[in-house]
Structure formats: C-alpha cells, structure tokens
C-alpha cells in the first residue's frame, strides 16, 4: 500500500492509483484479507478526485466574460 497521503496527491496521481486499484480488484489477484483495505483506499482516492474536480468546476464557473463573450477573469480574482 502506498505511503503517500491522499490529501497531498495531485488529481493525476490520485486517478492513476485509483485505476491501478480498480484493475487489481477486478483481476482477483488480491488477498481476501487485504481486499477491504484496498477497496477503502480506492474509495478515499475517489472522494479526493471528486473534490479536486468539483474545485476545478467551481473555478471554471467563476470565469466571468466581458461584453464580447471573451473571458476577462474570475470572480475570485476580482474580489481580491
């Protein structure tokens, strides 16, 4: 099991480990006793990825457009 803390992982790294876990669980090459720990790490990675995606979506949604429809910044940026 990886020692890297999930909350410190980038989206790409978390997705990569999640895909590896799903492949491992699907392959049947996991010990019965360890299967649950692997599933639980997978579930935590999925939650982390979803949170990262949500944050990115919120950033995109916050992009404000000028009168020509061109992006002129984000609400968060303007508020600062």
């Amino acid at each position, binding site marked *: 099991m990886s020692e890297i803390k999930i909350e410190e992982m980038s989206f790409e790294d978390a997705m990569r480990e999640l895909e590896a876990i*799903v492949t491992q*669980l699907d*392959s*049947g090459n996991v*010990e*019965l*006793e360890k*299967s*649950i720990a692997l*599933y639980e790490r997978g579930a935590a990675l999925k939650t982390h990825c979803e949170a990262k995606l949500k944050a990115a979506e919120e950033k995109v949604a916050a992009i404000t457009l000028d009168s020509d429809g061109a992006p002129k910044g984000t609400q968060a940026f303007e508020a600062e």
Partner: protein
Amino acid sequence: MGTLLFDHPGFDGHVTPPGHPERVDRLVAVREALSAPEFTGLIRREAPECTDVDLTRAHPQAYVDRLAAALPVEGWVSLDADTHLAPGSLEAARRAVGGNLAAVDAVMAGEAANAFVACRPPGHHAERGTAMGFCLFGSVSIAAKHALAVHGMARVAVVDFDVHHGNGTQDLLWDEPGTLFISSHQMPLYPGSGAPHETGAHDNVMNVPLAPMTGGAEMRRAYSDEILPALDDFAPELVLISAGFDAHLEDPLANLNWTAADFAWVTAAICDVAEAHAGGRVVSTLEGGYDLAALGASVAAHVGVLMERGA
C-alpha cells in the same frame, strides 16, 4: 419435523496462523450462540468425514491428492496468502463436506425439515483445482452434485448471501444444468468476479452485486425484485444456502451494513420459496463472518428462522 445442527470437534483442528480472521474462535462463537435455551430443540449430530468419491464429484483426484501430500505434520503450509493447511485442516474440510452431505441425506429422508451445518473451513471460494480465500473444498457444490447424482433430483438451487462472491461455487456449478446458483455480494471486493454478465453455461448462474455501504433496504430490494422471483421460477426441489454472515455492518472484511434482522429476513424469504416448491427442504452451511459477536447473533437469527419453519 425439526431442524438439524451438524458440528464436530474436528473442525477445531483447522487452526489458522495467529491473527487470521478465519479462526477457531468463529465456531466457538457460533456454538455459544446456539447453546441458548431457545435452541435446545435442535437435533444435534456429528458431521462425518466424506470420501474421495464425494470430493471427486467436484475436484480432480489429483487436487485431492495434492492437498493430502501438502499437509504439514506441524505448523502450517500456505496454499496462497489467505489459505493455510494445518495438520488437522483436511479432516476438518472433509467433515465440512461430509456434514453437508449428511444434512442433505437426512432432509431428503424426512428426518428433519431443514438443517444448518456449523463448519470450518468455508468452501465457496474453492475452485475445481484451486484452494483460495480460506477454502479447500467446494462443500455446497458437492452437496448440490450429490443431491442430483444420489437422490435423483432435477433442480437444486444454491443461494449464497456471503458478502464475497462465491467464485468457487460458480466454477463448480457453471456447467451443471440441474442447478441454479445465485450469489449476492459486495462489489468491488474479493475475489473480483461475480458481475451480472457471468450467467453460467446453461443460464444457471445469477450474480447480483451490491454497492459498498448499502444495507438491509437495498438487500431486501435486490432479493424481492431479482433473486426471489428467479428462485421461484426455477422451482427448486432442494435449496442449499451458502450462509456467510460477513455482510453484517460490524464485519471487518467488508462494507455492507446488514443486521441480524436482515439475515432473519433473507432466511425467511428463501424458506418461503423452499416451502412453495421443495417441501421446505433447506440445507444451510456456514461460510464467512469474521466479527465474533455479529457472527453469533446472525447465526442465531438465521437458525431461529430455520427452526420456526421446520417445526
């Protein structure tokens, strides 16, 4: 007619390495639960050892011989990371099969309405030539094949509500047209098989995966909407249950949230179908369940329903 309980001290000879979840104490907890006053009416019998003829209904003789040759004089021999042989393991596994066969024979002879086999090691992960997931021989599959071959039955159902997919039973019954194997299990989880598209060589396998963190409501819906209608359509002459209790919310090896009341519900629902088609004939065998208190309470709920229905 009553409910039979099969057990034997030989099951305790299957000693697993320290810290292993499938341990002697599991059956100690089951015996403790079934020693309560409400279970005095159980007809208690000792589980006999089965023969090689019985085992080879499901496994090649070479596999049986390989396990016998591997048996240690002391300590353990590991067959995989989960599955270990102690000096007493093969006697225990032969009694697990033998208990199931004796239970089928007794129920078929009308000596009891139904039976519970309190045995170790479990069996539903053992494939034709592979011991895995704590399992050595496919006890419930051998019982199903025995019912077809010895008792001349035409339709035998196996319902497996252990939280892990019964990949061994699926392997052993895949090409057995007289059987219907239905498994509900958490997915994803060990052993990774058990998707709905795995349906057997004769459309005789049904897999119903349950999502992690779901509980009794989702289980009851799955049984009511899918599993029980399929079981009813099959019209079994005998119903075998692979009774694992590791879908319990306290179980350390899975993430389903069933309670003892859910195990009672599913037992009663399976008994309803057995009463409609099979004269109430049900033989249930212990598979998983690794939280000792939850296991004891859930077995008590399960056997309690069998006794009510078998009275």
